[in-house]
C-alpha cells in the first residue's frame, strides 16, 4: 500500500513541475474525519454543464485534479453512491482543499430506457415500433413504410431495394405472401418491434448449408393476443360506404385472420390478396404462388389510369371476404388454410387521343371510353409444412376460379359508336410437394408440381370491325372472337447437395411436361345470318413441351466472400398438332449459365456482382398461326415455329448499412442485352387498325440502368430522410408498316421523402418524385414526358385526442393542355382513448378536380388520356379495434 501511495505522489510532483497548470488537490473526509475513497470529483466551468475533467479519491480520500480551464472559478462536483452529491465553487488556483461530506444514503431516480430505435443483433435489425409511431398511425403498414432502409412499392415491401422473401408475425407465416392483409389491418400498437433478418435461410435444413442473401421480415408482438381493425363509414355524394371488419388472433401455436371488407370509396381491397413472394432459384423453392392463370387474349380498349393514389380516381364497388388460419402442431408441423372471395365492379371513363407515328404518315385517333369491369374471384388453398433441422416437407394445394364480364361503350373519332363485351372465365388448380432430407452425407431434395387450368373467353364487338380483312370491305353487325385454352403442367426435380472441400455441389435433374390446347374462332353476324371465318381465323392447336434439364450448382462461402454458379443444360422436345395435323417434334438444347459473387468486406459494406446468359424459346401460348382479335382495333397472330430469345444480364449491387447511425443506402447497375430471331410486324392503317404478326428477321434491344436509394434516421430531431434516384437508357428495334427502325429511350428521375415527428403537437411528411422519359424514333421525332409529384401532409394536435390532417398532392406534367393539379383532403379525428376508437370526418378532393390528363409514350405513339376523377366527397367514419 505504501509503495503505491508513494508512486501516486511522485506522479503529482512531476506534473506540477512539467506543466504549469492548476492542480486542485486535497482530501475528502466524512463527519468523523476518515478519508472517503473512490469518490469522483469532476469540474466544470461556471455556467457550463459540460464536465471538463475528473478524478477519483484514493484509499485515504486524497485527490488531485489537473485543471485545464482558464476561468477564474470552477464548479467542483463530488459524488459517491453513499454520500450523494456535493457542489462547491472554488477559485482556479493551485491549492489544497479539505472537503467533508456527510453519509446520506442516496435515493436514485428510477429510470426506464426504451430500446434504441434501431439496433442490430447478429443478422437481425430491430426497429422499435414505438420510436417510429406518430399519433396519426393506426396500422403496422403506416410504420413499416417510414422505416429507414425499407421502401414500399405499392404494397410490396423492399429492404435495401430488394423484395423481402418472407413476412411473419411471431415467426409464423400465416398469409404465405399475401401480407398486404396483415400490413393494412394489424394495429401498430400491438407490435413491439419490426425485425429484418438479413441473409435469412427460411428452410431450416438448409441453414448454414445453402447461404441466402435475401431478407425476411418478422413482427414481434407485445403479447399473444386477439387484435385487428374495424371501420364503419358512410358518406356523400353519391351515397358512399366503407366497411372493414378484420379480427385476427396470434397465439403461440395458432394464428388466424378473417376479414370482411366492402366499399365504394375507391379502395381496391382485393389488392390485399396479392401474393408478393417471388420464388427463389435455390435448391428448394418454398413460395406458394404455384397457380398460373390462363392468359387473357382479348381486352376492352382501356383508358390509362392515373399513376397516383387510387382513392382519387377509382370508381368501384367491392365486397370481399377472406379467412386464413394457421395451426402449429406439437411435432412442429404447420397447417395453413385460406379462402378468399371478392366481387368487384369498376367503372372507368375517359378520353384518349393517340398520335401514331407510322412511317410516311401520322395517324390520329380519338376514343371516348366508358368501361365497366365486373369480376368475381374465388381462391383458396391449403399448405402443410414441416420445417425442421432434420427434415423439410411441404405440400401446397391451391385453386382459383374467376368470372369476369366487362362491357365497353366507345365513341371512335367522335362519330362511330362501338360496343365491346368481354367474357373471361378461368379455373386453375395446382399441387406442389417438396421435401429435403439428409441421406448419408448428402442432402436430397425433391419437388413435384402438377397443375391444370381451363380458360374460356370471348370478345364481342358491335358493329363489326376490320371489314377489309374479315369481310371483303362489306360492313357487318357483329364480331365474336372466341378463345378456349386448357393447360396441363407438371414439373419434377431431384437434387443431391454435398459439401466437398468447402464447396457445396448440387447436381439437379429436372423433368417436366407442359401441354396447352388452344381453340379459337371468329364469328361474324349480319342481321339474322351468322358465319364462322375460315382457316386464317381458326386455331385448333395442341402444343406440348417435354422439358428436361441437368444443372450443376456450386456455392462457396469463405470469410468475406460468397460465390454461386449454376450451369443448367436443357433439352426440350416440342411437339405441335395444328388442325389435326401433327408436325415433327423439334428438339432444342441449350445452356443457361449464371453466377454471382458477393463480397461483404466489413460490417457496413457489401457488394455483389452477377451475370447470366439465357436462351429461351417462346412459350406455348404464342405459337398460334391464325389471327386472334385482341381488341376492336388490334388483330394478332404468331407463327407455329419456335421463337428464340437470347438474353444477357449483368448487374452490380452495392449496399451500405450502419444501424448505429441509422444509415442505409444501396446502388445498383444493370446491363441487359437481348437478341431475337424474329420481330413483331406492326401494320397500322389509316383508321388506326393494328395488325401484329411475326416476321423472320433478327432484332434486338439493350439497356443500361442505374438506381440508388438512401435513408437515414436523425433520431435527435425525430426525422427520417429518404432519397432515391434512377437513370436508364436503351434501344430497341421495331418494324412498323414495313420499315425497320430503332427506338432510343431514356429516362431519369429522383425523389426525396422527409418524415418528421419530433414535436408532440405536429407531424409533417413531405415527399416529391420527379421523372422524365424521352423517346426518339428512327426519323428523329423526339418525345419528352415529364412528371413531378409533391405530397405534403401535415397533422396538428391542438388538444389531446383531437387532430386535423391536411393532405396535399400536387401533380405537375409537361402536357400543354394540362394545368398542374392540386388535390387536397382534410381529415378531422377525435380519438376516444377509453374505448380506443376514432371518430373521423373527412373531405376528400376538397378542390373538386374532376379530370386528369396524362401523356405517355408507347413504342411509336404518344397517347394523351383524360380520365374522370372522383368528385369532392365527404365521409364520416368510426374506427375501432378488436
Amino acid at each position, binding site marked *: 500500500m505504501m509503495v503505491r501511495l508513494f508512486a501516486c505522489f511522485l506522479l503529482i510532483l512531476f506534473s506540477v513541475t512539467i506543466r504549469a497548470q492548476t492542480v486542485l488537490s486535497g482530501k475528502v473526509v466524512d463527519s468523523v474525519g476518515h478519508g472517503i*475513497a*473512490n469518490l*469522483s*470529483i*469532476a469540474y466544470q466551468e461556471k455556467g457550463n*454543464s*459540460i*464536465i*471538463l*475533467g*475528473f478524478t*477519483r479519491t484514493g*484509499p485515504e480520500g486524497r485527490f488531485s485534479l489537473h485543471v485545464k480551464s482558464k476561468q477564474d472559478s470552477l464548479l467542483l*462536483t463530488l*459524488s*459517491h*453512491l*453513499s454520500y*450523494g*452529491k456535493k457542489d462547491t465553487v472554488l477559485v482556479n488556483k493551485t491549492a489544497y482543499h479539505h472537503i467533508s461530506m456527510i453519509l446520506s444514503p*442516496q*435515493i*436514485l*431516480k*428510477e*429510470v*426506464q*430506457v*426504451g*430500446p*434504441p430505435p434501431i*439496433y*442490430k443483433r447478429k443478422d437481425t435489425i430491430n426497429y422499435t415500433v414505438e420510436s417510429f409511431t406518430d399519433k396519426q398511425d393506426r396500422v403496422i403498414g403506416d410504420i413499416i413504410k417510414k422505416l429507414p432502409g425499407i421502401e414500399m412499392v405499392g404494397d410490396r415491401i423492399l429492404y435495401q431495394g430488394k423484395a423481402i422473401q418472407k413476412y411473419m408475425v411471431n415467426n409464423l407465416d400465416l398469409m404465405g405472401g399475401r401480407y398486404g392483409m396483415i400490413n393494412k389491418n394489424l394495429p401498430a400498437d400491438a407490435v413491439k418491434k419490426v425485425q429484418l433478418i438479413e441473409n435469412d435461410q427460411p428452410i431450416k435444413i438448409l441453414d448454414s448449408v445453402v447461404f441466402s442473401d435475401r431478407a425476411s421480415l418478422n413482427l414481434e408482438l407485445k403479447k399473444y393476443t386477439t387484435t385487428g381493425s374495424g371501420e364503419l363509414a358512410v358518406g356523400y355524394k353519391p351515397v358512399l360506404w366503407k366497411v372493414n371488419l378484420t379480427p385476427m388472433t396470434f397465439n403461440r401455436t395458432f394464428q388466424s385472420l378473417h376479414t370482411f371488407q366492402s366499399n365504394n370509396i375507391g379502395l381496391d381491397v382485393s389488392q390485399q390478396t396479392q401474393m408478393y413472394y417471388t420464388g427463389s432459384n435455390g435448391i428448394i423453392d418454398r413460395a406458394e404462388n404455384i397457380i398460373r392463370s390462363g392468359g387473357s387474349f382479348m381486352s376492352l380498349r382501356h383508358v390509362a389510369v392515373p399513376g397516383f393514389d387510387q382513392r382519387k380516381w377509382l370508381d368501384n364497388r367491392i365486397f370481399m371476404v377472406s379467412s386464413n388460419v394457421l395451426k402449429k402442431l406439437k411435432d412442429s408441423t404447420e397447417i395453413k388454410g385460406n379462402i378468399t372471395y371478392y366481387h368487384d365492379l369498376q367503372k372507368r371513363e375517359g378520353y384518349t387521343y393517340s398520335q401514331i407515328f407510322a412511317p410516311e404518315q401520322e395517324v390520329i385517333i380519338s376514343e371516348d371510353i366508358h368501361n365497366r369491369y365486373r369480376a368475381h374471384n374465388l381462391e383458396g388453398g391449403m399448405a402443410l409444412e414441416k420445417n425442421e433441422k432434420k427434415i423439410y416437407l411441404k405440400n401446397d394445394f391451391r385453386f382459383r376460379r374467376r368470372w369476369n364480364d366487362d362491357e365497353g361503350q366507345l365513341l371512335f373519332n367522335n362519330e362511330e359508336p362501338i360496343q365491346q363485351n368481354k367474357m373471361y372465365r378461368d379455373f386453375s388448380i395446382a399441387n406442389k410437394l417438396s421435401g429435403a432430407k439428409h441421406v448419408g452425407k448428402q442432402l436430397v431434395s425433391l419437388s413435384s408440381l402438377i397443375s391444370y387450368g381451363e380458360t374460356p373467353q370471348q370478345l364481342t364487338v358491335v358493329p363489326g370491325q376490320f371489314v377489309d380483312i374479315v369481310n371483303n370491305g362489306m360492313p357487318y353487325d357483329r364480331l365474336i372472337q372466341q378463345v378456349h385454352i386448357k393447360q396441363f403442367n407438371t414439373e419434377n426435380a431431384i437434387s443431391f447437395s454435398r459439401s466437398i472441400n468447402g464447396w457445396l455441389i448440387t447436381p439437379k435433374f429436372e423433368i417436366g411436361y407442359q401441354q396447352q390446347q388452344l381453340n379459337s374462332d371468329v364469328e361474324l353476324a349480319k342481321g339474322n345470318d351468322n358465319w364462322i371465318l375460315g382457316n386464317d381465323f381458326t386455331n385448333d392447336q395442341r402444343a406440348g413441351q417435354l422439358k428436361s434439364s441437368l444443372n450443376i450448382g456450386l456455392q462457396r462461402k469463405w470469410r468475406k466472400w460468397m460465390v454461386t454458379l449454376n450451369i443448367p443444360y436443357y433439352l426440350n422436345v416440342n411437339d405441335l398438332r395444328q388442325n389435326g395435323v401433327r408436325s415433327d417434334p423439334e428438339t432444342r438444347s441449350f445452356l443457361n449459365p449464371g453466377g454471382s459473387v458477393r463480397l461483404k468486406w*466489413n*460490417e457496413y459494406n457489401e457488394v455483389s456482382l452477377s451475370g447470366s446468359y439465357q436462351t429461351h424459346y417462346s412459350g406455348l401460348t404464342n405459337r398460334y398461326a391464325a389471327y386472334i382479335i385482341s381488341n376492336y382495333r388490334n388483330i394478332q397472330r404468331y407463327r407455329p415455329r419456335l421463337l428464340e430469345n437470347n438474353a444477357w444480364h449483368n448487374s452490380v449491387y452495392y449496399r451500405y448499412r*450502419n*444501424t*448505429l447511425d441509422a444509415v442505409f443506402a444501396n446502388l445498383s447497375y444493370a446491363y441487359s442485352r437481348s437478341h431475337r430471331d424474329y420481330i413483331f410486324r406492326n401494320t397500322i392503317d389509316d383508321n388506326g387498325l393494328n395488325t401484329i404478326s411475326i416476321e423472320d428477321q433478327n432484332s434486338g434491344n439493350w439497356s443500361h440502368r442505374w438506381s440508388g436509394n438512401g435513408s437515414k434516421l436523425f433520431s*435527435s430531431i425525430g426525422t427520417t430522410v429518404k432519397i432515391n434516384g434512377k437513370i436508364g437508357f436503351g434501344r430497341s428495334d421495331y418494324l412498323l408498316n414495313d420499315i425497320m427502325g430503332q427506338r432510343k429511350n431514356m429516362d431519369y428521375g429522383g425523389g426525396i421523402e422527409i418524415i418528421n415527428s419530433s414535436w408532440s403537437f405536429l407531424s409533417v411528411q413531405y415527399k416529391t418524385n420527379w421523372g422524365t422519359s424521352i423517346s426518339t424514333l428512327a426519323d428523329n421525332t423526339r418525345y419528352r414526358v415529364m412528371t413531378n409529384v409533391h405530397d405534403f401532409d401535415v397533422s396538428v394536435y391542438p388538444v389531446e385526442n383531437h387532430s386535423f390532417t391536411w393532405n396535399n398532392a400536387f401533380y405537375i406534367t409537361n402536357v400543354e393542355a394540362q394545368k398542374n393539379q392540386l388535390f387536397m383532403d382534410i381529415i378531422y379525428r377525435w380519438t376516444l382513448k377509453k374505448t380506443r376508437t376514432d371518430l373521423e370526418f373527412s373531405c376528400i378532393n376538397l378542390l373538386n378536380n374532376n379530370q386528369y390528363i396524362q401523356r405517355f409514350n408507347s413504342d411509336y405513339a404518344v397517347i394523351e388520356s383524360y380520365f374522370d376523377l372522383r368528385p369532392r366527397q365527404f365521409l364520416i367514419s368510426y374506427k375501432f379495434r378488436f
Partner: protein
Amino acid sequence: MELLVNPDESVFRAKKRGVLDSVLQASLEGKSSTNNFGLIRANQTPINYYIYKTADSIITQEDYQLGFNKEQFYIEKKIFDWQISPDTITIGGMKCQQATTDFGGRKWIAWFAPEVPINDGPYKFRGLPGLIVKVYDSKEQWSFNLRSLRKIQRKVTVKFDRNDPPDFMQKKEVFANKKYYIRNRMKIEEASGLVRPKDEKSRRSGLERDRKRAEQDNNWIELYDAIVH
C-alpha cells in the same frame, strides 16, 4: 445482463445466470425443493462470465466448461484512461456526456450520466464521474445499453468470496485456455469422461462442430490477439 451495485462493490453478469445461482444457492441451503429442473432449463444462457469490481480490482470469473468447480478467475488492476469529449445526448431523460477509451484491442465510446453518482458501468467499464449508460466499440460489434435503473434490496450470492479468494490465474492464461477449450471441447470432455460419443460418426461430427464453432467464435469483447500476443 445486470449490473448490481452497492457502494463498495459491483457484479456484472447475465440476468439468467443470476437466477440460476439463486436457485442453486437456495437448494444448497435447503430452502427450496431440489426439483428446479424447469427453472434451470429456462435460464440457460451462453453468457458465462462474471465481473466483480472492488475498489481497486476487477475480477473476472469465466466458467465455460462442464462440470463442477471449473471456474477460472483472473484479476486486473485496470484504471481506464477515459478521454472526455464535450458531446452530450439525452438517454432515458438523463443528460449524458461522451468519453472514449482504448481497451482490449478496440476503441470504445461511452456515454455516462453525471447525475447518477455511480462510477460504474457494464462489463469491466467504470471510472467515469457518473453511470455509464451506453458503451460500444467503434466497429459497432459490441454494444451495451442501459435498459432500466432500479433500486433493489436483495441478497446476492456470488461465487467469489473476498475473504477466501480463489487462485487467480493470469489473464493471458485464461484467454488461451478458453480458446483451447472451444477448439477442443469434444476431446476435453471426452477425456474428462463427462461426455462419451455414441459412435465414431457422431464423434467426428462433434469434432467438426468444434472446429466450426471455434472459427465463428472469433470476436470476443476483448480481442484475443490484443490480450495474448
